[in-house]
């Protein structure tokens, strides 16, 4: 097991948002985290990367144990070194060029030499098809392009796992495809990914496993195929149906 989280709990203002989540990730897994709005998907990812401090829980990463509540600065740095995070709103550094967005973490975070960082950055940007825009600023890019740069920024540190929090939700429909294509390519290359998404096509066809959450708890988890074709829980069934219906509605409106 590459990564395992146990008993992740989190409350906001006394309201429980995560009620003890367990999660296992094998190397090469692409896990889609599904669930209705407010079920705690974002909070779970954020806790795993210490963007949010869990109230309790532990993380075992490459056999090393971390306390999600009481981790030290050093622990957090160690975990973040092996992970990357892709946000819904890209969160690119707006005062930096595409190239600088990718090199900044390498030169300042990882203390890499400028030339080496540049080389790695260019290679990462090539992987997402953005090497032709090195000197552009984020404001000069489309949302899809910005998200691809954000993915390149994550790739640059050579992470063992990438967390995606609804990477296509902020995008215009016609731009979603280019980002999903990059993610699919990463999946094909064997990258381990944890993806919060509402893209059922991606969950069904690209992800190898599904984790379905509701109300801060895992309702069902397992291989994608089985989840979609034969969900074990009534709630999962209802969720899949509601998504398909919503999509059907969208289609008939077009």
């Amino acid at each position, binding site marked *: 097991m590459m990564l395992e989280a146990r008993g992740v709990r989190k409350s906001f203002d006394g309201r429980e948002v995560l009620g003890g989540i367990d999660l296992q990730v094998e190397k090469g897994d692409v896990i889609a985290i599904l669930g209705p709005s407010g079920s705690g998907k974002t909070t779970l990812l954020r806790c795993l*990367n210490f*963007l949010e401090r869990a109230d309790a829980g532990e993380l075992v990463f490459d056999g090393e144990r971390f306390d999600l509540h009481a981790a030290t600065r050093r622990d957090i*740095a160690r975990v*973040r*070194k092996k*992970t*990357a*995070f892709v*946000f819904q*709103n890209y*969160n*690119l*550094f*707006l*005062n*930096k060029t595409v190239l600088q967005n990718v090199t*900044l*973490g*390498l030169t*300042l*975070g*990882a203390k890499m030499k400028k030339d080496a960082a540049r080389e790695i950055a260019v290679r990462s940007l090539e992987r997402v098809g953005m090497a032709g825009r090195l000197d*552009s*600023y*984020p*404001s*000069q890019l489309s949302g899809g392009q910005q998200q691809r740069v*954000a993915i390149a*920024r*994550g790739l*640059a*540190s050579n992470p063992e796992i990438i967390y995606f929090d609804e990477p296509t939700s902020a995008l215009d429909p016609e731009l979603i495809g280019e980002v999903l294509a990059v993610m699919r390519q990463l999946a094909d290359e064997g990258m381990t990914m944890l993806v919060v998404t509402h893209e059922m096509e991606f969950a069904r066809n690209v992800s190898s496993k599904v984790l379905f959450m509701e109300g801060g708890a895992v309702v069902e988890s397992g291989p994608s195929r089985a989840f979609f074709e034969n969900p074990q829980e009534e709630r999962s069934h209802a969720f899949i149906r509601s998504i398909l219906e919503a999509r059907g509605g969208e289609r008939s409106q077009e």
Partner: protein
Amino acid sequence: MNERLWGILVDAFPKLLGYGVRVTVPLTILSFALALLIAVAVALIQYANVKVLRQVCRFYIWIIRGTPLLVQLWLVFYGLPSAGILLDAFPAAVVVFGFNEGAYMAESVRGALESVSRGQLEAGYCVGMSYMQIMVHVVLPQAFRTAFPALSNSLISMLKGTSLASTITVMEMFRQATVINGRVYESLGLYTEVALIYLAFCTILTWLQRLGEKKLASYGGVRA
């Protein structure tokens, strides 16, 4: 205009300008430097939500914004000596102008910091950068650009405000005008003249502000 008045104004001009350049301008620059230092510190404390200090900062802003500048000046220069704190007029003016404008500028800087999305801070953490590194390379440059117009306006209003220092015996440009006027009784002419010199100073600053705004990196045209 009669010849006597014209002669007075021509005589007064180099004196006024001299005090403007030697006193008003340094007074403005020193006060503004102090104000900027205070503003950035106060804004950063509030932005980073440092516990006790944050309350101190709010208190400071509350006091400054809720009392007149003139009263603050008089309190420090005429009042504090009774409490054993004796300042010369010029340093007293620098301290009061600095702390006064600093409170307003702190709000501008804080607003500018808040306008930089927190997501960039989180993204920085995720790629292994420290809080300091992210502030220096990402947040502050963007905030500075956003705050620049407001800070320029503060500088201009401070330049004009230094005339109040005349009331605590600082011999600056305006006080010099009143001194000359005490000899020649030409209020309309002299005060118009000194107003025009202030106007010229402010026009130069406004022009520098525009130049600065153009010069500041535009990050590909985005207006933060």
